[in-house]
């Protein structure tokens, strides 16, 4: 009887508010459209960042190889851009037909910004086409700088477009005070709704995330071309391209958790109950899955670097250290993935002597997890450092002292991280939360300090031999695929986390979801949806890249391609 009354109530609330989508339902349809659109958008916003950087390196260093690499990145962009727009249109049509009341609420508040968005989208599209198709026309002297400025402009348009869209979605999470289902109060402007509590943290988090995502997908593309290459020159080029993509991805990935930490803090500051839902409520186990994924990312990235050291003359002297770094990574990964709150029966609870497991409880808390992830970051940075040092023989007089200083920085950072990790067990929650800041700062200080010392330390260093680009075992390239797939899946998971913490609200505590899909699904269902989105996205990317290859072959038949030769390493 109660269920019948609920159905009657739901029907009364939802008349005209929701549409129906056959077979998979409205929520799944919008989920797929939004997620795949977002994945393409992340790619087309991330790739221009390093296309512009590598082009600049080519201009300043007068090295055409970087210019060619930049153009190749941009070529991927042109094809992916259409897919982004198509999926964006699908998303808008789905929202207008399946969630008309919610969409009406958003358009009522953000209508003006949507028109601006469309205008910027035109500007971005034309800039991209000018940038790509004008590559060979504006390739020397002042015109080259003009061309580079087009790339900068492309990034500016893209960033503004993303910031506007972020205003809409963060409004759904943290609407300004006084907002109701009827709209904004008179004293709150559209800008006030855009620049809400979580807007800037999401902006920064997505900027960094896009760079990582673009890097991993570009590296996977390079890996595919490496495996498909028929000449040593091609293998050398795509080996180098894969390395650059991975280098950018992992470099930015290291700072991504800090942006995530900021976002989390803002969510807590905006609404404690939303923060608790995210970290300790029904979503708490999502972070265990996230830990599994990020552990794979760390392991695959380090594995790729360690394998890559085999093609660097002199780097074999670092090989004995890799097993210890692997040990640190695996132990930290296990700690990070340890759950804290266990779902147990009364009997299990009685056997454990309480709600928490006597041993896992110690490892499952944030003190242990923060310590683990910071040590993983330090270890990965050490791998990068050893890779960079691989074929260098230091010639500065203070080489020994400089190296010892670098070692001391690592030790101090690790001691600080471990100290606050242990100390955190002996202080109240409110004090312990602040310790993560000290841990993060010590790791960041180590990364910056060691890098600065290394730049001076390796000045004038002798080479023990050129990097043998292309002489890379094929299994290393599969590590790049694992990175791309994992990061894509991770993006889908984090999208679910961000969206799911609103629970049964379209707009948090302003506009309730009264559709049949209002309850937020469990992780198993979410994982199915994420996997489906990842497969659709990667399938389309593969198709687009294949199309790009067809176009390249057609172009090659018309005019010979410029010669390919082994490339120097970034920063060498």
């Amino acid at each position, binding site marked *: 009887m109660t269920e019948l009354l609920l159905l009657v109530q739901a029907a009364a609330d939802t008349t005209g508010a929701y549409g129906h989508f056959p077979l998979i339902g409205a929520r799944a349809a919008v989920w797929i459209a939004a997620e795949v659109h977002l994945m393409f958008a992340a790619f087309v916003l991330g790739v221009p960042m390093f296309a512009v950087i590598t082009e600049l390196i080519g201009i300043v260093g007068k090295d055409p190889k970087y210019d060619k690499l930049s153009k190749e990145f941009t070529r991927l962009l042109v094809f992916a851009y259409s897919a982004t727009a198509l999926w964006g249109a699908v998303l808008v049509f789905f929202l207008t037909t399946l969630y008309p009341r919610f969409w009406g609420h958003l358009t009522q508040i953000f209508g003006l910004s949507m028109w601006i968005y469309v205008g910027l989208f035109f500007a971005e599209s034309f800039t991209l086409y000018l940038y790509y198709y004008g590559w060979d026309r504006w390739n020397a002297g002042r015109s080259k700088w003009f061309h580079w400025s087009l790339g900068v402009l492309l990034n500016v348009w893209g960033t503004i477009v993303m910031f506007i869209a972020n205003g809409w979605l963060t409004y759904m999470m943290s609407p300004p005070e006084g907002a109701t289902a009827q709209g904004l109060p008179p004293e709150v402007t559209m800008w006030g709704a855009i620049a809400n509590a979580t807007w800037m943290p999401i902006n920064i988090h997505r900027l960094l995330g896009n760079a990582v995502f673009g890097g991993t997908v570009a590296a996977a593309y390079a890996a595919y071309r490496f495996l498909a290459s028929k000449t040593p020159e091609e293998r050398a080029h795509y080996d180098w391209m894969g390395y650059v993509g991975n280098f950018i991805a992992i470099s930015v990935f290291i700072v991504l958790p800090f942006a995530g930490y900021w976002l989390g803090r803002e969510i807590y500051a905006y609404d*404690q109950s939303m923060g608790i839902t995210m970290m300790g409520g029904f979503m708490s186990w999502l972070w265990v899955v996230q830990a599994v994924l990020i552990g794979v990312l760390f392991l695959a990235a380090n594995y790729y670097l360690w394998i890559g050291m085999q093609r660097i003359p002199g780097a074999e002297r670092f090989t004995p250290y890799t097993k210890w770094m692997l040990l640190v990574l695996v132990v930290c990964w296990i700690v990070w993935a340890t759950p804290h709150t266990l779902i147990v029966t009364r009997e299990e609870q009685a056997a454990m002597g309480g709600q928490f497991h006597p041993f896992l409880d110690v490892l499952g808390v944030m003190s242990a997890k923060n310590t683990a992830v910071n040590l993983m970051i330090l270890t990965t940075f050490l791998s990068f450092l050893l890779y960079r040092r691989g074929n260098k023989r230091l010639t500065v007089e203070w080489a020994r002292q400089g190296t010892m200083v670098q070692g001391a920085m690592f030790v101090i950072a690790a001691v600080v991280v471990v100290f606050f990790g242990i100390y955190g067990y002996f202080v109240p929650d409110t004090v312990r939360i602040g310790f993560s800041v000290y841990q993060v700062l010590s790791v960041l200080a180590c990364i910056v300090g060691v890098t600065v010392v290394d730049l001076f330390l390796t000045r004038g260093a002798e080479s023990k031999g050129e990097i043998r680009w292309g002489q890379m075992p094929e299994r290393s390239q599969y590590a790049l695929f694992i990175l791309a797939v994992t990061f894509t899946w991770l993006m889908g998971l984090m999208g679910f986390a961000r969206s799911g913490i609103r629970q049964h609200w379209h707009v948090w505590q302003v506009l309730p979801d009264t559709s049949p899909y209002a309850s937020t699904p469990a992780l198993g269902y979410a994982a199915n949806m994420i996997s489906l989105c990842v497969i659709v996205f990667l399938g389309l990317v593969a198709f687009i890249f294949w199309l790009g290859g067809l176009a390249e072959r057609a172009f090659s038949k018309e005019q010979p391609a410029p010669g390919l030769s082994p490339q120097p390493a970034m920063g060498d």
Partner: protein
Amino acid sequence: MWATNAKIVALSLAVIGFYTLVAHIIPQLQSEVPAQVAVGPGASPEELAAAGERIYSTVCTACHGLGTRAPNLVTDHEGLGPIGARCLARFGDRCKDYLYHSLTAPGDSVVPGFANIMPDMRTQLDANQIWAVIAYLQSQGGEITVTSQDLESAPAQTAQPAAAAVLSATTDPRELLREKGCLGCHAIDGSGPPIGPPFDGIGSRLTREQIREGILNPNATVARGYEQFAGMMPPNFGDQLTAAQLEAIVNFLAGRR
């Protein structure tokens, strides 16, 4: 190249499948929509409590379930029993008003040792859902005094907390102190919780003006030794008391030397 393509596809699917599997083998927790209270006039206390339990289990247990972020309300606390028993012992027939106030102005009733993190539940639940939750909480060792009349006369979303809506005409200071919940935090006659300064001897510590100021603007000055409870006392007694009631309390407290 077909072999390479097959390997890449197989690897990608294996990685995706692995993550999907991990997400499936962990506990499957779904966030349910708070139940609508589908009980009409004449609903029994048990029906109200049953509706409240459904809401409680979907909305409240994230914090109140473990007893680490917020007190566990459905288990014994310091030998005083679950929330229904504790509330009945402390507030008697005004228990439901106290619980309503706790749900709508939770910052006024933060339990020592826990942080002030609970939102005004009117932002998440409608009035009927709140009364249903109260009925459920009362059922935990206490007596359900919520009735279907409460549901029908439930204040609107923007209404003031119930404590403000139950003005009485009495000027008996002891009755007022009990009615306004003062004795929930302040000890008198040598007994009571030590959350606020005891009323015994307050006349020798404070002047009449300071006592009056302390009632009307309680957060302006925090008594030494009670800093950790700063901000707990409701700042709206000026709206709840008539001038005669206020003066009756001030005179009563000023006389307790």
